[in-house]
């Protein structure tokens, strides 16, 4: 008898998260929980100014404090060729400033002391003499002809431009616009936001002089990439470096890059020959580490009168801060921005992109999205709504006219990606039905007569999740595949390791479910380990919703290798030829005699005690999986809001999410991912941004200014599902971790814009703070959110 897959915690089981056993008991093991003998503590002195020349640094006051063991400055780093480090986008970033500071919060010096209090005292005792320079806080200022040069450290850098890049068919798009009946135009800004994991960044570097081995406990989503980077930067042989990412308190993209604190703690350990712990505080995390977004769009849509879109043009200007340290595939300068409009059947598209340096924190990490896909889908769905409005067509009907149809797959997207599966219209229909769209127009009109403003906003999108394949996707030349290693012990229990790194996604639970599905070993009999480069197989880590599409596929593939060997063992045990052995969940049996069988556990025991002649003993293997394509989940998010015309405050009356992420491994975890993503989407639409004043001061350096939503204001979400299996993934799964963050914001903003449609307002930049909405309502004008924010003394 085959096993009941749900009972053994296989595919489709809403199995409780095994990692939660330790988390809810306070037994998680985070970097800050790790205590090593003789450990010192490091604190970072940061620049109070956004742009200034460093005239001198006097560290004598810090050295005079009892308990201070080391003070690091840029000059000391430079003497060891460590003042600058390479970024993940082929630029350089200052580890500790030598010549200038280029953003507020930049790392200037480090104090290493017996405890963190003394280290902080030491930082306060350092005197830095700054000569202020004019700061630049947006692309317009950056590209002004007389703008001060931010990156004067770079040879041949004559202006503040990072790159010009383009993709798509310019001529075809020009033709489409020439033939169009209607052209819709809209400009907008996707504001700078921050991934803001609850655990900030940190590291403990432990260099052992006697073995020459460097062990680093680190908050990283990609331990193997870090190992390679540390090897290259610090010139330590790769086999002498062990990176351990213990439990992570969230990542959301923030923990992909290499940060100066990591590098400084490593040098400090080498110099002091003691372990050195650096734990970033929340303000340090918010003002200096990888942010998300900060992109301006000029968008155009060319249409026929019947609603058919003929072509789109996008021009983006992206603000990368002082150093171009985006974590993204090397080939694509503005990430996967050109995944925009992938769910629509549009023949022509052209994208031009310009990146600039500013005096703001560096980064451009993919905050819970697959390399700028959040911006792409937000721009797409805001352009779609504006186009529908400009055409005078119903927003749902306009989408229906242009969505790719079920029988059109595989489908080439306007910018050249290949999508492979989906039921877009079905998802839209479910969403419209759930929100009550059919009756809404009348409800909206009647409400308006009574002075109430209601609106519905739709966001439909498919996004590319699961970087790579390795032909197109690499970071610094390292190809984007992933791996899994499975060891089945003789009693049928197992340990699974992958090159991914869970940070809240629940890999310890879901990977075991994939093994259970493939081998019939109960999920509870499988332990999952990740994050230690000395034990885990090489992998590119967890971000871009790539774990299930890539590492998860490797888990299925390695399980199948194990099953193939177990089949040979089963044939041996059953004394039949391998061709006569059939598989059902958890056991092999003889074809035609189902009662004659052996369980996977019996095969495991035989692998260590009774293998056929000529077979290697043991039951373990590994698999490296290079996906043939990205996975393309589809989502339809619809929000219904009410705007208070007297205050501009808006409330979400209902929010419906229809997600098609293919086969769901653990439905409960998928739903958690969607709810978390929608919460972040709501936050970005409603309250969240990191902006700057005219002096380059960061407005959003703490949790009173940078707002994370609480359960109090977060609306409820109604979730629906459609399942279109991914045709190339071993178990038919697609990425899901980021869909709601990516597709959600446009639904909320479109809803508010729908409520304001009668005023003629076409755009309010996020976040839709009450004063912006009220301002738009009373003036009938669009509201731009370009920094600097207006601040009066």
């Amino acid at each position, binding site marked *: 008898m085959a096993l009941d897959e749900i009972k053994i915690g296989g595919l489709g089981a809403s199995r409780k998260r095994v990692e939660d056993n330790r988390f809810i008991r306070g037994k998680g093991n985070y970097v800050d929980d790790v205590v090593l003998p003789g450990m010192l503590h490091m604190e970072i002195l940061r620049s109070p100014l956004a742009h200034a020349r460093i005239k001198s640094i006097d560290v004598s006051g810090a050295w005079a404090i009892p308990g201070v063991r080391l003070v690091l400055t840029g000059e000391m780093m430079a003497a060891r060729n460590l003042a600058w480090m390479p970024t993940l986008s082929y630029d350089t970033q200052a580890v500790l400033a030598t010549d200038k500071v280029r953003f507020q919060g930049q790392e200037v010096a480090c104090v290493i002391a017996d405890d963190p209090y003394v280290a902080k005292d030491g930082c306060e005792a350092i005197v830095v003499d700054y000569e202020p320079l004019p700061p630049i806080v947006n692309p317009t200022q950056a590209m002004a002809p007389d703008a001060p040069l931010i990156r004067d450290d770079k040879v041949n850098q004559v202006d503040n431009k990072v790159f010009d890049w383009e993709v798509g068919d310019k001529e075809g798009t020009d033709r489409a616009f020439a033939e169009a009946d209607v052209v819709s135009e809209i400009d907008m800004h996707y504001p700078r936001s921050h991934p803001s994991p609850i655990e900030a960044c940190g590291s403990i570097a432990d260099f052992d002089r006697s073995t020459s081995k460097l062990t680093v406990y680190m908050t990283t989503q990609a331990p193997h990439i870090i190992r390679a980077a540390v090897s290259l930067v610090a010139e330590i042989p790769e086999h002498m470096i062990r990176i351990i990412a213990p439990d992570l308190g969230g990542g959301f993209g923030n923990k992909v890059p290499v940060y100066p604190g990591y590098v400084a703690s490593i040098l400090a350990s080498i110099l002091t020959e003691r372990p050195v712990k650096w734990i970033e505080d929340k*303000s340090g995390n918010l003002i200096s580490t990888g942010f998300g977004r900060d992109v301006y769009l000029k968008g155009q849509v060319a249409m026929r009168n019947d609603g058919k879109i003929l072509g789109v043009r996008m021009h983006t200007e992206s603000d990368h801060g002082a150093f171009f340290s985006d974590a993204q595939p090397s080939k694509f300068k503005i990430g996967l921005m050109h995944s925009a409009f992938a769910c629509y059947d549009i023949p022509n598209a052209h994208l031009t992109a310009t990146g600039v340096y500013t005096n703001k924190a560096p980064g451009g990490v993919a905050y819970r999205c697959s390399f700028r896909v959040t911006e792409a889908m937000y721009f797409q769905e805001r352009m779609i709504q504006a186009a529908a409005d400009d055409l005078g067509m119903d927003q749902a009907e306009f989408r229906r006219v242009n969505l790719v149809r079920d029988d059109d797959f595989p489908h080439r997207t306007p910018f050249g990606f290949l999508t492979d599966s989906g039921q877009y219209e079905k998802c839209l229909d479910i969403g419209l039905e759930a929100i009550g769209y059919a009756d809404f127009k009348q409800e909206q009109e009647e409400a308006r007569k009574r002075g109430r403003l209601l609106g519905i906003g739709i966001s439909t999108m498919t996004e590319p999740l699961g970087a790579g394949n390795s032909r197109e996707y690499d970071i610094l030349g390292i190809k984007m595949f992933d791996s899994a290693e499975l060891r089945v012990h003789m009693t049928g229990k197992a340990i699974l390791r992958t090159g991914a790194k869970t940070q809240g996604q629940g890999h310890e639970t879901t990977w075991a479910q994939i093994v259970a599905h493939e081998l019939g070993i109960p999920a509870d009999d499988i332990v999952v380990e990740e994050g230690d480069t000395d034990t885990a197989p090489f992998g590119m880590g967890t971000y871009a919703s790539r774990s299930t599409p890539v590492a998860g596929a490797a888990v299925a593939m390695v399980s199948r290798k194990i099953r193939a060997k177990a089949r040979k063992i089963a044939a041996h045990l059953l004394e039949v030829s391998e061709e006569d052995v059939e598989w059902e969940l958890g056991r092999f049996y003889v074809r035609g005699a189902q009662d004659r069988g052996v369980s996977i556990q019996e095969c495991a025991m035989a692998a260590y005690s009774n293998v056929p002649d000529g077979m290697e003993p043991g039951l373990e293997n590994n698999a490296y999986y290079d996906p043939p394509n990205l996975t393309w989940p589809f989502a339809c998010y619809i929000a219904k809001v009410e705007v208070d015309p007297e205050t501009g405050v808006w409330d979400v009356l209902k929010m419906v999410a229809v997600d098609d992420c293919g086969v769901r491994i653990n439905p409960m975890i998928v739903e958690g991912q969607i709810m978390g993503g929608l919460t972040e989407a709501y936050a970005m639409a409603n309250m969240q941004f990191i902006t700057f004043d005219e002096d380059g001061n960061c407005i959003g350096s703490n949790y009173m200014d940078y707002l*994370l939503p609480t359960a*109090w204001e977060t609306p409820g979400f109604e979730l629906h599902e459609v399942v279109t299996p991914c045709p190339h993934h071993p178990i038919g799964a697609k990425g899901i971790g980021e869909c709601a963050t990516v597709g959600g914001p446009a639904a909320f903003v479109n809803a508010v814009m729908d409520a304001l449609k009668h005023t003629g307002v076409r755009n309010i930049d996020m976040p839709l703070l009450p004063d912006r909405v009220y301002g738009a309502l009373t003036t009938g004008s669009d509201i731009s959110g370009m920094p600097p924010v207006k*601040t009066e003394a």
Partner: protein
Amino acid sequence: MFPSRFDYKSPTSLEEAISLLSAHEDAKVLAGGQSLIPMMKLRFAAPAMLVDINNIPGLDQHGAQSDGSYRIGALVRHADLEKSKTLGDHQPTIAAAAPLVADPIVRTRGTFVGSVCHADPQGDWASCMVALDGSIVAQGPNGRRTIAVDEFVAGPFQTVLAADEIAVEAIIPPASGTRKGGYLKLERRVGDFATAGVALSLEMSGSTVAKAGIGLTGVGSATISATEAAAALVGSSLDDATVDAAAEAAAAATSPRSDHRGSADYKRHIVATFVRRLLAQHQPAEAKVA
């Protein structure tokens, strides 16, 4: 987030606490600590000593007194007021504000009197105290004195408390009629500082306003008492014209700054809107616009 070095004392009587404050320069009183501790961790504040008053008995009571006044002791937490079943009968303004102060975590620890002593122009309680004509009782080496709240708050984050004085309780005077009131606050998220907030107190004689007070939160460099707006209400029955006049006068009393919470004009508009909304709750039925 590591504060500078400080000494910590935990006296068990007010006398002992006051003598510690007298004997040590730069000592600070620790009650709920919800502003002081973050400021120390940010190193915006670096007192040499904390005098923790949490172990002093008798400071955690609040309630109506026989003379009709209402007293709130120095260790009464925001949550004590929020959860009180009788507060609303006596002090509707405070009862309305209590659930809006900061967030649930801060409310379990932070204190009413401590918030007034912090003198943050964004503080909700100072606005309520202004609207209610409240006072603070301070105890020092030479005994107690009672200080009206508008004198007590000397400026942003400044009070007239002497270095060796402790604010031991707040007093709301008896009402000269039926007490009504409310509090409205616009915040971007629970726990955010107010974009703008309005505290209203009315003392009604029948349908006529006998006395009124309006305190404004977050729209100036200190808590604002909108005295002209309040004066406009006295003697009226809250007809629409009076309500409008009070709303406009309250907005005119503000001096907000434009910042990431909103423009100065917007904050003024919110003050006027909230004054209207608060007064609308107490307008006689026939005065309300359909």
